[in-house]
C-alpha cells in the first residue's frame, strides 16, 4: 500500500481537456474522467440538456504522489479561477500489485 493524494475535480465538460493538460503537465501517472454529471454551485444549477449540449459537468479523478501535488495544484488554480468548478484533495492509498 502506497500513500497517495486523491484529486477530484468537478468542472464543465468543455474544460476537461484543460484539466487533463494540467494534470499531465504536473506529472501524474494517470487519471479517470466520468462524464454526464449535473450539479449546482456558485454559478447556479447545471443540468445537461442535450439540445445545446451546454450545462454538463465532468468529474476528473486522479491519484498522485504527494510530491507532484503542489505542482498540479498550481496548474489547476487558474483553471478554477477562470472557469469555475471545485477541486477536492484527500489522502488515499493505492493497492500495490
Amino acid at each position, binding site marked *: 500500500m502506497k500513500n497517495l493524494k486523491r484529486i477530484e475535480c468537478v468542472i464543465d465538460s468543455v474544460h476537461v481537456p484543460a484539466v487533463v493538460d494540467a494534470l499531465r503537465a504536473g506529472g501524474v501517472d494517470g487519471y479517470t474522467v466520468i462524464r454526464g454529471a449535473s450539479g449546482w454551485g456558485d454559478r447556479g444549477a447545471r443540468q445537461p*440538456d442535450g*439540445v445545446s449540449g451546454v450545462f454538463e459537468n465532468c468529474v476528473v479523478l486522479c491519484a498522485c504522489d504527494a510530491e507532484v501535488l503542489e505542482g498540479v495544484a498550481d496548474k489547476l488554480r*487558474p483553471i478554477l*479561477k*477562470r472557469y469555475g468548478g471545485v477541486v477536492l484533495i484527500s489522502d488515499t492509498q493505492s493497492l500495490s500489485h
Partner: protein
Amino acid sequence: MDLSLLFDNLRTPAILFFGLGVLAAVMKSDLALPQPIPKLLSIYLLMAIGLHGGVELMRSELDASIIMVLVAAVLLAAAVPLWSFAILRLKLDVPNAAAMAATYGSISAVTFITADTFLDTVYVQTDNANYLPGGYMVAAMALMESPAIVVGVLLARYFGKPSPDPSGGGQTPPLRAGDHDGDGKIDWGELFREAFLNGAVVVLVGSLVIGIAITPKGWESIKPFVYTPFKGVLCLFLLDMGLVAARRLGDLKSCGPSLIGFAILSAPLHAVLGIGVAWLLGVSQGDALLLAVLAGSASYIAVPAAMRLAVPEANPGLYVTMSLAVTFPFNITVGIPLYLAIIDLIWK
C-alpha cells in the same frame, strides 16, 4: 397579417409537439428525451437538410444571383453582432454582450427547417412554385453559422479587459479557442477551428457537399432514411425542444426585462432586414422567408459550444436561455407566418 397562415402553422404536427413539450415541462411532468437522443436527432436533421439542399442545388440552375445571396448572407451574419453588441453593452458587460451578439448573428438550423416545412405546406395549398425555396439556401445557412462566432470573439478580445489573472505568468491555464495566451494575442488557428469545425457545422457542410456529389441513384437509395421520415423526426425533436425551452424559463427572472425585450424584438427586426436584402436581390418568396428566418434566428448549438471555450466569462445561462427559451419559440410559432405575411405584402 393573414391569421389563417398563423393558425395553419400552429396546427402543423411539429409545432403541436413543441407545444406538448412546453406544456409537459410547465406542468412539471417528468417527461424527457434521454440524454444522447436529442444530439442524435440534431445530427440527423442537419444531415438530412444538408443532403437535400445539396441535391436540390445540383438540380437547379446556378447563376450569379445565387452568389449574391450567399455573399449577402455572410455579410448579414457578420454585421448583426456588431450593432447587437453595441445595444447589449447598455445592459451587459463585455463578455456577455459579445457572446449574446454572436448568438444572434448566427442561425438556428431547426428554425430554418421548420420554416422550410412550413413553405412546403404553403406551396401545396397555393400551388405557387415561388414558395419553393432553392437548395442554395441551405448553403446560405451553412455559411451563416460561423462568421458571428469570429466576430463575437474579436469583440470580446478588443473591448475586453486584458487577462483576468495577470498575477503570475506560469499560472495561466492552458487556454484554448482563440483565447488570450496571456499577452493579449489571439490564437487565430484555434479561433477558426472553433468557428468552422464545430460538429454541427461539419455535418451540415459535409452533407451539403455529399448531396452535391452523389448520383440521383445514390440519393434514391438513402432517401427513405434521410428524407421520407424527416418531418416525423422533427416532431420528436421539437417535443424535446419544448421541454428544454420551458425548463429554461425559470432562468428568465435573472435575465431581466430589457434582455427579454431584446430577444423578442431582435427576431422580427433582423428578419425584416433579411426580407429587405432578399427584396433587393430579387429572390422569390420562399427564399426570402428563409433568409428572414436565418437573420432573425439565434444559435443554441454552434455558438454556445464555441463561446464557452473562447469567452468563458460569459454566462451561458444568459445567452442560451435567451436563444432557446425566447427567440426560438417566438420564431417557430408567430415569427414564421408573420414574416411570410410581410413578404406577401411586399412581393405582390
